[in-house]
């Protein structure tokens, strides 16, 4: 499967040669930090305050992927997200209080409190058309979005996020084959964080890597180091343009790591400690901030100021969500059908 394009880390020395302004670097950093602080706060709200309950899947450790990919897309491109979608939503610019409000089950939430954490990324205003809690199911749906885009001769594309676990579902296979057969403008983004719940990737998938496998369907496929936001961005940029121009699917597998348990309550003791430590050493935000400093784009102080501002915004989102009302149960019926 020699036709997989492998992209490793981008050194700081390259930063100044990229067609990215300082503002853009700052924006990338800010987005990553928003996700980080948001998720850390959510984790506390579940485990310490006990104020939130239910299933919740944190994006900690994968920030570079959502931010790198979104940066490479146009705002009017379509996104299909998952139950691990907070990162996708924030990277796309979904207001924090709408996202947090959804976790609180409140009317101000993206889904008016009807979806909860697992569907909170769904935000049509921001062209996130679906956030599924069923592993793999977003893939054929993304193909359908691609079908509509192609049919309408739109020059938009759809980016579909999913995990390594999705690669073993029938929906993955059927969806990618049909996108390839019909030549649909879909960018598939597999966030291979090494685990599907407790199952390590090597015990889940019989193929070597998912990108190689996708190339078996005739898709151009990339395998990128997913803890480097700039590498992800570069690959996604190239891939998105190919999809846009050729109106045919492209596949990106990002190697990354789920820094926490599968869900917020999972302590994930099934992971070897050295493995966890190794990946934590390669934390995407640590890596990126170091390179920003090394390349002289931002100072330590500036990074800290961003952090303060972000933390404040997270806290504001929590407070707004706490105060907000819950939808009236008697009114729920009106969200069932579009026509009666």
């Amino acid at each position, binding site marked *: 499967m020699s036709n997989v394009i492998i992209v490793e880390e981008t050194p700081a020395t390259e930063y100044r040669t990229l067609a990215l302004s300082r503002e853009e670097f700052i924006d990338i950093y800010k987005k990553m930090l928003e996700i980080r602080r948001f998720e850390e706060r959510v984790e506390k709200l579940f485990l310490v305050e006990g104020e939130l309950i239910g299933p919740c899947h944190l994006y900690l450790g994968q920030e570079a992927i959502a931010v790198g990919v979104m940066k490479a897309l146009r705002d009017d491109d379509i996104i299909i997200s998952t139950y691990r979608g907070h990162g996708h939503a924030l990277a796309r610019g979904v207001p924090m209080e709408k996202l947090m409000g959804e976790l609180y089950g409140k009317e101000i939430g993206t889904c008016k409190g009807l979806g909860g954490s697992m569907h909170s990324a769904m935000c049509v205003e921001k062209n996130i*058309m*679906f956030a599924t809690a069923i592993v793999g199911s977003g893939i054929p749906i993304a193909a359908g979005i691609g079908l509509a885009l192609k049919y309408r001769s739109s020059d938009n594309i759809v980016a579909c996020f999913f995990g390594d676990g999705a690669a073993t579902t029938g929906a993955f296979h059927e969806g990618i084959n049909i996108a390839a057969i019909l030549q649909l403008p879909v960018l598939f983004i597999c966030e291979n964080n090494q685990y599907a719940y407790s199952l390590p990737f090597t015990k889940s998938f019989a193929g070597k890597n998912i990108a190689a496998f996708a190339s078996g369907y005739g898709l151009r496929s990339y395998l990128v180091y997913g803890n480097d936001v700039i590498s992800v961005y570069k690959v996604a940029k190239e891939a998105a343009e190919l999809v846009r121009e050729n109106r045919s699917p492209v596949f990106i597998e990002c190697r990354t790591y789920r820094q926490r348990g599968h869900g917020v309550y999972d302590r994930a003791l099934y992971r070897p400690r050295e493995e966890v430590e190794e990946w934590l050493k390669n934390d995407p935000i640590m890596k990126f901030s170091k390179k920003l400093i090394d390349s002289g784009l931002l100072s330590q102080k500036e990074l800290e100021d961003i952090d303060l501002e972000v933390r404040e915004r997270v806290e504001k989102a929590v407070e707004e969500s706490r105060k907000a009302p819950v939808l009236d149960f008697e009114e729920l019926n009106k969200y069932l059908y579009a026509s009666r």
Partner: protein
Amino acid sequence: MPHVKVMNLTREITYAEALNEALREEMRRDENVIVFGEDVAVIGGAYRVTKGLLEEFGPQRVFDTPISEAAIVGLAVGAALMGLRPVAEIMYIDFLTISIDQLVTHAAKARFMSGGQVKLPLVVRTQYSLGRVHASQHSQFLAPWFLNVPGLKVVLPSTPYDAKGLLKSSIRDDDPVLFIESGVLYSTKGHVPVDEYLIPLGKADVKRAGDDVTIVALSRTVIEALKAADKLLEKGIKAEVIDLRTINPMDWDTILNSVRKTNRLVVVDDGHKTGSISAEISARVSEEAFDSLEAPIIRVNSPDIPVPSSLQLEKAFMVDAEKIIKAVIKIV
């Protein structure tokens, strides 16, 4: 008298042809309507319902898919989210079991769980093949499951006239519609107007008026119920035959009004008895018209075994006019 027919502006066409006309008219009317599924384009469908559509509307709007039922409905979900009006075909309702995650856990819930952010104007057309010697894996009547899926609309037409009018409304509807055809009815003929018409979803149809007993039926069993009503009339029993047309939403008013008039109810459908559509109707009517009932409600269904393949055995398995007559006679 062909002259009279022309005056009525109808012609006799088959159930399959009526469906084909509905698709054709809606595709002409709205370019958001697209059609796909297994074998629907080049050969015009396993049962020729989509015949000629590829020729008229081209491969962008009518195309064959691989054997990937989950992806077929997934495609419809995605396309509908973007405002297209996909009409996806699942060749047999038995294969819909492979698409149920997309249909039930996605299409039917997307609007609600997103707080009303999206709508999904999609139609999944399929058919049940009971009565064609197709054996256990190709003869299931799975309609009752979808009665229990809020967010979905479910339609089962019994005549060419209904098939056309209901399919057109289903395509125009803004919600996901499961449109279940009856395989044995494809070749049956009936009068269908030349002019355009629609039949609203959620309204039952009184196919025969009567005072003595109400027979509620749907899809293929409507035909059997009408035959039964004919024979019952010979015995002096006037049966009212109600064709449900859609089971989700269900037209309770029409059913209840009829029962309040006749005070007797027989419910007929092609499913296994236990857990059938008939069960819901029986339960609801008991709840809401308990005092009107002068006899127990009788359900006429298939027995609780898979469908046997053998011609004779399948016949014995199925609901028919005779079984309906027996049930009616028990309570009048």
